[in-house]
């Protein structure tokens, strides 16, 4: 890596190098907020970082695969154990209340909408 690139990327966590896979995601919106599912096989809880910086949400992780050191790859479709993907969050979301669970290599995040952004029903009063 040249010096130039390291200067522009200083805000990134040093644990995950630049070469990283973008995990496949499903994103859905409901009245209460956004649900994000990301495929991160091999990533355990202690190897996962979820970072919110301003409007930016970044998920990063490293997969652990227990193979002997003497392994010689014959065929590989996943060439790096690192995952990283960033998203821009809408201002209507409350990033301080993100809930995340990780199960069987799938990250499930729920980002609630802030109170004023939720749909409300307005009662009509009969005079």
């Amino acid at each position, binding site marked *: 890596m040249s010096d130039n690139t390291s200067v522009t990327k200083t805000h990134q966590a040093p644990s995950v190098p630049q070469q990283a896979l*973008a995990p496949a995601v499903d994103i859905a919106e*409901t009245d209460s907020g956004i649900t994000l599912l990301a495929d991160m096989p091999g990533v355990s809880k202690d190897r996962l970082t979820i970072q919110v910086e301003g409007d930016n949400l970044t998920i990063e992780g490293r997969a652990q695969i227990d193979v*002997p050191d003497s392994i010689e790859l014959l*065929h590989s479709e996943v060439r790096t154990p690192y995952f990283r993907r960033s998203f821009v969050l809408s201002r209507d979301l409350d990033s301080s209340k993100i809930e995340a669970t990780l199960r069987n290599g799938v990250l499930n995040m729920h980002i609630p909408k802030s109170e004023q952004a939720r749909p409300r029903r307005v009662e009509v009063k009969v005079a």
Partner: protein
Amino acid sequence: MISSFQAAGSLIPEMNWLQQQLEDLLLPGVAPGIRGLPRGAFPAMNVGSTPDSVEVIAFLPGIDPKAVEITVERDLLTISGERASDSSQGRDGAHSYAQERFAGKFRRVISLPQDADATKVDATFRDGILQVSVAKSESSKPRRISVE
């Protein structure tokens, strides 16, 4: 590229293609991987060889290990199962913005190297990674023959 814009129905794949091209251009650091694979190639697999075994790694996030079927027939290793689509996607009032994750039945078959011993197969599953270890047959291991 413009000439291939024919009917409105073909716009979506064109847009996906364009998005992919833009991502390649703007994010050169993102390695082609799980997402770059065609839809049929689920799970992604790595195959490696050690002096004692053939290691097959299948990336199966979000799958119950009990629901994965692994069979060995002669020198063919088959991994099959089904990944249910997430229930929240179909819920009332939910709008889907991205649906990149694989859903449905999958099946992948690989042929094992000749020196693999199909009777000695171990499989472990952790954090969405299935690791199948097939021992190499004794006769294929290097040995020294002493002269008497």
